[in-house]
């Protein structure tokens, strides 16, 4: 669709849209920071920000001003190029992911036919920025954090993509807009509960949100790759984190919850569609914050094991079941039943994984080192 908005030159149109994105993203991220602080405060049985502006609404603004005013430090031994460009490498792919997000009918930056492909390709790029930041900082916490981030991203990319794949199998398209439109009767979560759950978990890992915040684990690696950053560079990481949180929530609502279409999206017009998107995304965001307030962090081996041994096989299973149903043209209710079965399987496998005896090489090492000392 080369036609630009308001009939403008496509290049100019593209520029306007990108500027809108940047503005919108920044405001969204700041709003999300405020919301997260307020909601977390409520979970903590406290009130959250309340001194800056009415109900503390200007807290994010104050934070932003403070961060901009701070000195942008670089450790002497840091690798200048990787250190300075790390934040951009995190930030830019997240913004690029915004391009295909469907907010209302006809109101995404671009409707790409390979929208899902594009999103997956772009969103996994930001991990390079994490590793760059981790390596370039010349800090061991940062390096461990960067390595953890890389390991985690590679592991969770697979169930992430596979559960996306099951959705597009069902709808027969990779175009996110068409996926949304195809849910005008029933949202995909009804047909694909397992894929939704896997996608949600994998999205948490992609976002490095608890319980998968291992790369930045505050109590272990003290912020991981960000440990040496300050001022505006650090705030870019921060902004990127919340921007990707928003994007991921919009995507989940578009793919599984019917996006702007279900219920009555087309009938009630564009304003209602926007409201639908926002409400659904807000629900997802609230869920993510809720998870953050209530669960501890996983350990790196548990995280990897969970991805490779539980999520990946189950998401493959989901793809297989989808294929089976589509090829033999079975009624869709089979998908629902299979999906619910899959969810039960996932939960019980998780339960069993917790009860497993821990594999450790603690005792042998202790005897070794004590013999040495």
């Amino acid at each position: 669709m080369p036609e630009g908005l308001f009939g403008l030159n496509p290049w100019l149109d593209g520029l306007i849209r990108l500027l809108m994105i940047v503005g919108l993203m920044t405001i969204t991220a700041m709003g999300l920071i405020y919301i997260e602080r307020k909601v977390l405060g409520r979970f903590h049985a406290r009130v959250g920000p309340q001194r800056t502006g009415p109900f503390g609404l200007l807290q994010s603004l104050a934070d932003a001003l403070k961060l901009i005013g701070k000195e942008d430090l670089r450790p002497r031994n840091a690798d200048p190029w990787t250190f300075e460009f790390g934040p951009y490498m995190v930030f830019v792919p997240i913004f690029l992911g915004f391009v295909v997000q469907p907010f209302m009918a006809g109101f995404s930056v671009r409707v790409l036919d390979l929208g899902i492909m594009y999103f997956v390709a772009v969103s996994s790029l930001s991990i390079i920025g994490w590793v760059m930041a981790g390596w370039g900082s010349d800090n061991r916490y940062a390096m461990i954090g960067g390595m953890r981030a890389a390991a985690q991203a590679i592991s969770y990319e697979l169930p992430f993509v596979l559960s996306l794949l099951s959705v597009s199998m069902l709808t027969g398209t990779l175009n996110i807009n068409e996926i949304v439109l195809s849910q005008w009767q029933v949202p995909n979560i009804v047909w694909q509960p397992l894929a939704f759950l896997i996608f949600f978990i994998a999205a948490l890992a992609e976002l490095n949100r608890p319980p998968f915040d291992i790369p930045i684990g505050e109590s272990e690696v003290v912020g991981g790759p960000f440990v040496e950053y300050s001022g505006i560079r650090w705030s870019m990481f921060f902004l990127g984190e919340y921007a990707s949180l928003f994007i991921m929530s919009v995507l989940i609502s578009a793919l599984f919850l019917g996006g702007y279409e279900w219920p009555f999206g087309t009938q009630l017009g564009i304003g209602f569609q926007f409201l639908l998107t926002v409400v659904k995304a807000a629900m997802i965001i609230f869920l993510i914050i809720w998870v953050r307030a209530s669960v501890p962090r996983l350990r790196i081996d548990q995280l990897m094991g969970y991805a490779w041994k539980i999520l990946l096989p189950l998401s493959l299973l989901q793809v297989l079941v989808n294929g089976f149903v589509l090829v033999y043209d079975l009624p869709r209710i089979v998908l629902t039943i299979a999906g619910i079965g899959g969810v039960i399987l996932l939960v019980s496998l998780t339960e069993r994984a917790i009860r497993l005896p821990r594999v450790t090489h603690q005792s042998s090492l202790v005897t070794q080192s004590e013999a040495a000392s």
Partner: protein
Amino acid sequence: MVTESASEFETQDLLLNVGPQHPSTHGVFRMVMQVDGEVVREVIPYIGYLHRGAEKLCETMDYRQGIGFMDRTEYLAAMNAELSYVMAVETLAELEVPERAQWIRMILVELNRLASHLMFMGAFGVDVGVFGTPFIYAWREREAVIDLFEEISGDRMMYAYLRPGGLAWDVPTNFVPRVREVLTAVRQGIADFDGLLTKNEIFIARTKGVGVISAADAIDFGMSGPSIRASGVPLDVRREEPYLKYNDINWNVITRTEGDVYARYLCRLDEMRESVKIVEQCLERLQPGAIMPEKMPRMLRTPPGEIYVRTEAPRGEFGVYLVSKGGNRPHRLKVRSACLSNLQALRHMTIGSYVADALIVLGSIDIVLSEVDR
């Protein structure tokens, strides 16, 4: 998993310096970890950043001035620390503590145990990675206890309320109802932690089977408190060498057999329930009366002698070894710190575990650096 056989790709271990400024070291504790990927190969702890020479200072102060140093030695359970010290002085000076003072002391030390364990719950929850929630929950309930202490002693942390012979002054008239209020709050806090952490799958996965220490090793390392009771050793000074009135009431020594981080957590949680029980019984037995002995000398002097008094503080055995050569000052005062002995076993418990585990093992032995370094 990194195993020995992976070494054909010549890898280099990384030295990771944790602390003295680190969110999980609970103060100025430093350890240098040699890590192979994520596996800890060697841990070298460094302590002493908070050494203030409290023992030496106490030798230059008279007995009553020493109480303040005990507060600062173990600031999360100052009442327990004071108790050991004043009991040592009382035994040396042959002072008889009145009934009422003993019951009040018992209530106070058990309440302080509750406050201290709540602090552990909060800090440990954050170590394991719950963002802030357990910390604020713990803080809320601890606040109730601290408020009560403030009403009684006038200070929120450094109470200096116990005196050789009894108490500095009597408790306020609304003491009993206030303690009951606090107990209600604490009971709610225990229930909250039960709901938030005890049954949490990820919490269990993170803590079960981590940092295991056997009963024999724990004894050999001189561990004490919940850390050794979680390994199945029913070592509790309150039961084995009862002081105050612990013999007159019903309570249980909490032990578990697993010896891992989860067991240490559960031990503390159950101990809090026991403490609530103890305080309730004490409140029923509390009678009006004197809080100081009748003939209290204006200047407290002790005959020559020595004594090692031990009491069960929240973190373990808090011992005070007091040597007197007569006069109004100790000749030598040694604080036996439970944290120091527990911390010694850290290396044994962490080598071979993951970096993340090493930090929760450190959290699970619940150190207070000012007590370690004194």
